[in-house]
């Protein structure tokens, strides 16, 4: 797990997280990341091979509801916080390029 934190790593993570970073931010995070990761590395030598993972802590299981239509938001309410809408749709950047 010992890994040197590089600008490339920060750059890749920011792409995955969809946040554009400035050069100054990248440099700042290289240092801060190393400090925090260095601290968290303390768990690396603990043996947990035979332990089950806990991903949730409620006792509730298979919580289902009846498949009936309930009152929900109308279109106007659902769109009201968007800065870019058209004909009742959210406008988002195109994913595919036109040739």
């Amino acid at each position, binding site marked *: *797990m010992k890994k040197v934190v590089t600008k490339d*790593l*920060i750059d890749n*993570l*920011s792409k*995955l*997280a*969809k*946040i*554009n*970073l400035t050069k100054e*931010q990248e440099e*700042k*995070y290289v240092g*801060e*990341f190393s*400090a*925090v*990761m260095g*601290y*968290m590395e*303390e*768990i*690396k030598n*603990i043996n*947990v091979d035979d*332990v*089950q*993972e*806990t*991903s*949730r*802590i*409620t*006792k*509730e299981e298979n*919580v289902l*509801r009846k498949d009936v239509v309930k009152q929900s*938001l109308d279109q106007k*309410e*659902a769109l*009201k*916080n*968007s*800065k*870019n809408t058209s004909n009742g749709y*959210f*406008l*988002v950047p195109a994913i595919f390029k036109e040739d």
Partner: protein
Amino acid sequence: MLIDHSIKELSNLLKKKEISSVDLVKESYSRIEEFDLKLHSFITIKDKTIALKEAEEKDKNIKNNSSIVYGLPFAVKDAYVTKDLRTTAGSKILNDYYSPYNATVVEKIAKAGAILIGKNNMDNWGHGASNENTNYQIPHNPWDMERITGGSSGGSAVAVSTRMVPFAIGEDTGGSIRNPSSMCDISGLKVTYGRVSRYGAIAYASSLDTVGPMAKSVEDLSYLLEIMAGYDDHDSTSSTQKVENYHKYLEKSIKGKVIGLPKEFFGAGLDPEIKKTVLTAIKIFEKLGAKIQEVSLPHFVYGVSIYYLIALSETSSNLGRYDSFRYGDKRELFSNESIRRILLGTYALSAGYADKLYKKAQKLRTILIQEYETALKTCDVLLGPVTPSLPSKIGEMISDPVKNLLEDLYTGTVNLIGAPALAIPAGFSEENLPIGFQVVGKKFGEGELFQFGYLYQQETDWHKKLPPIIQNVKD
């Protein structure tokens, strides 16, 4: 100062028509107007004329069987969505966001007749233990204006501590209710995971987030939980377990009950003044007839790492929804603290590291739960400090990411387990800074925590002290 009265006293005065809801709302606003330009405990405040109109309605309709919070003003952390007041989660990304619906907890308290007057300051998205990570103005601790309030529910703690409102609703993912409660000398409850619906609570880390009350006393908390708790079909993790009459626990004796002191909670890193104060609190419980027993939770020393690996993984996923298309502004407006947390979470979940980091943390979470369950076989509750250090000077903590993480040393582990924990004022440092302790209980054992807390507050008056800034208030 009416708002210094307990919720029960205020309710009785209202029902006897000795005071009015209008009086209370007016007092809230006059205190906010007088102090909040300096304290910054609110991000958004409701239009006073609207709040007063609501109060007039309440005064007309109050009956003897009205809820105990009927006609009382209250505030919520800005992590709860509200239809008529903007919701920012402390971030500029949601600077102009108006939710199309109300959070369940807001809806329940409003239905009981309380009047929401504003939204409290917080570390954005809950990311922080000092409230310095807000995109709005940094709130100040009313006990020492140069110091932090604690966080992330810092604004709510200040608003209650300075009697701007009789109570507020906070949110606790890794200590966010208990930490500022302790630093501002109020009482705060982190509920059992699932006890209160999270619907409409802006998610930080979904397997850890809990919705809880913050108030002037344990008695007040017990009444509030009765209103807030219960199953909600909008939150499939909310529990169907029966909601109890929590205030019925208040007068019960704790004679013969066993308090476990986890030795890991009193080790290196704990401020000596806090340690001394917590140990003094324990003597009071002994006087009340409780037995004290040392216990060990060996893996709790790794609690911060486990907590952060899980919380940040979850937050990197939860905050993915802020795409700026459906609502909110662009992702580059996340604060440095939040970006670091999102990137760390992304790293812990990324190919090649998920097994070593995220899954390993989940396995260690299992071990923590087992250790806690073992300890509670021989003890009724566990007791320890809330934070390892006293409120720092504003600016000190935000520049040190690791120190910021370590503030959650004693609180974050409780969220991993899902247990309830009650933070209670326990005294002051030499510099007159508030110090609290927490009692951790069995799951859905909030009643027992109230029992311990209430009896402690009958023996002490730390929770009744007023911060210097409001000591000369006349109204």
